């Protein structure tokens, strides 16, 4: 079997057992990245530094760390010391951070070899991986289709066997959506489970860093390394969770399934959810229908809050302190010209929406109401979890859409997030597990209470085993 076809766990164990070296594993990843360049999954790779790190690992002969010698790609909105971090934006095309994000530091301390950065929707704003200054990411199962977004390159690189795992980020479905479209496992962790220090913010109250891999166990291995309290993120308060301590199975658990599906959902997606429900039931779960808060109101609340936070977070991009600087005869002229030429259309649109929501009549009309809806959604999920242990729902309303198939109505694309944004608003964890693969992948998501990731891993791994039979 090719090294690159191995899961993260199998690769790590192979290195430990001396079947191959960390250098061989790293070289194999670079070879696949070069071979599959047309998929456009990566923005920056650093062969020299990565091979040096792998060589040091081999020379140390100490492979006791949880990710020793494992090559990993990082989404390009997460800061990596000495390695360009562009957010797929013209504004940051040449930006090189001087520190590592906490998540990256923890991966390195666990022995992972950071080999490069993945393509994405600019600043995380998009559902298809098309809003990138570096071009769209193609779906490895059908290159005429998108990979999903915004962690498009992370999902694509894992699905196409370039790396065993990659790190993504999720604000309103940016891990679970591309995971579904590319047929890989993706975890949107509980809000604040993984430190956001070093993540270039899109919407701070919603942003999360999470793993994408080819098995549930691999996601758990990465969470074990990345999660936990961090003094550099004031919301990252919990520590001590053991993400590897879970029982595989669903016997005796109550699983909530949607009592109805949102109008636009593809029948193939409904069939995938029903297939997963049958597997869960056959393995001892009790299924109960639930009225899950999914709809236009939740979508509106999500976009009002995320655009408002984006407008505020991206206000610091003035062209003076970092990134692209355009010419101008005053501070304002430099700032306006740098932002206008540096940001892509979708980012500019969301900043303008955000300022619409935060100023004048928009504040009472949208922002306050959106926050009320957010609280209601959180309370409704609280009520649902009094009646069931977890929820099964679609990850995406359709299979991967064709590239360049966007509607003239820009808000039409928001509907792709419809099953993800309520979970984001409530800060809950969600695990996407592939269910169907032919002709195109479809994943379903398991949603649990805050910090219930081990439960999701246990049920997800059972589902994964049953599907692969």
């Amino acid at each position, binding site marked *: 079997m090719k090294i690159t076809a191995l899961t993260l766990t199998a690769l790590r164990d192979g290195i430990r057992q001396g079947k191959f070296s960390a250098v061989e594993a790293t070289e194999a990843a670079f070879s696949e990245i070069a071979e599959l360049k047309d998929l456009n999954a990566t923005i920056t790779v650093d062969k020299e530094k990565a091979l040096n790190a792998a060589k040091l690992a081999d020379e140390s002969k100490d492979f006791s760390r949880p990710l020793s010698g494992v090559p990993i790609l990082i989404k390009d909105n997460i800061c990596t010391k000495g390695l360009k971090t562009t957010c797929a934006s013209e504004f940051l095309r040449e*930006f*090189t951070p*001087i*520190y590592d994000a906490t998540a990256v530091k923890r991966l390195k301390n666990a022995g992972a070899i950071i080999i490069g950065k993945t393509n994405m929707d600019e600043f995380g704003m998009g559902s298809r991986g098309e809003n990138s200054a570096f071009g769209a990411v193609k779906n490895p199962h059908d290159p005429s289709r998108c990979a999903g977004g915004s962690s498009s390159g992370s999902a694509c690189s894992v699905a196409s066997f370039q790396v065993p795992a990659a790190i993504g980020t999720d604000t309103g479905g940016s891990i679970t959506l591309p995971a579904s479209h590319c047929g890989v496992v993706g975890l949107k962790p509980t*809000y*604040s489970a993984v430190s956001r220090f070093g993540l270039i913010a899109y919407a701070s*109250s919603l942003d999360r860093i999470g793993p994408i891999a080819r098995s549930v166990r691999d996601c758990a291995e990465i969470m074990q390394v990345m999660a936990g309290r961090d*003094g550099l993120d*004031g*919301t990252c*308060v919990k520590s001590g969770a053991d993400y590897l301590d879970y029982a595989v199975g669903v016997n005796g658990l109550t699983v909530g399934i949607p009592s109805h599906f949102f109008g636009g959902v593809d029948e193939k997606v409904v069939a995938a959810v029903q297939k997963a429900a049958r597997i869960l039931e056959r393995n001892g779960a009790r299924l109960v229908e639930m009225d899950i808060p999914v*709809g*236009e*109101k939740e*979508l*509106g*609340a999500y*976009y*009002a*809050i995320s655009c408002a936070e984006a*407008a505020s977070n991206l*206000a610091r991009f*003035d062209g*003076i*302190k*970092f*990134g692209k*600087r355009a010419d101008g005869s*005053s*501070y*304002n002229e*430099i*700032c*306006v*010209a740098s*932002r*206008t030429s540096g*940001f892509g259309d979708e980012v*500019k*649109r969301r*900043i*303008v*929406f955000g*300022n*619409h929501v935060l*100023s004048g*009549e928009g504040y009472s*009309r*949208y922002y*306050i*109401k*959106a*926050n*009320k*809806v957010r*609280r209601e959604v*959180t309370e409704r999920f609280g009520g649902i979890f009094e009646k069931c242990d977890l929820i099964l729902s679609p990850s995406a309303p359709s299979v991967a859409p064709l590239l360049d198939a966007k509607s003239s*109505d*820009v*808000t039409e694309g928001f509907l792709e997030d419809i099953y993800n944004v309520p979970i984001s608003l409530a800060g809950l964890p969600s695990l996407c597990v592939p269910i169907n693969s032919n002709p195109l992948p479809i994943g379903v998501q398991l949603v649990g209470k805050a910090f219930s990731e081990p439960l999701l891993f246990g049920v997800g791994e059972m589902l994964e085993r049953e599907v692969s039979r």
Partner: protein
Amino acid sequence: MAIKEKDIKRLLSLSMLSCSDDELKRLKSDLESFENRFRSLDEVEVSACDNLPRAHESFTRADVVKDSCDREEILKSAANTEKGCFVVPRVVE
């Protein structure tokens, strides 16, 4: 709410962005789509106590002075620096 051209110009100014006349028309149409899409929020009744974002559990750090990043390293990210400072056009006449 009908979106007027002057509203878009005000939002562009708040956003520190500029655009051509054609882009302005497009932005107006996009903002109108946004308004239509999220009409469902109009039905939400709010009271005075709803004027609060959702609070996350959080902690604060002790306010202690300690070594941070190197000044020269930080300035490398900027396009124009001099004598350890960012260079901008004169702001005080």
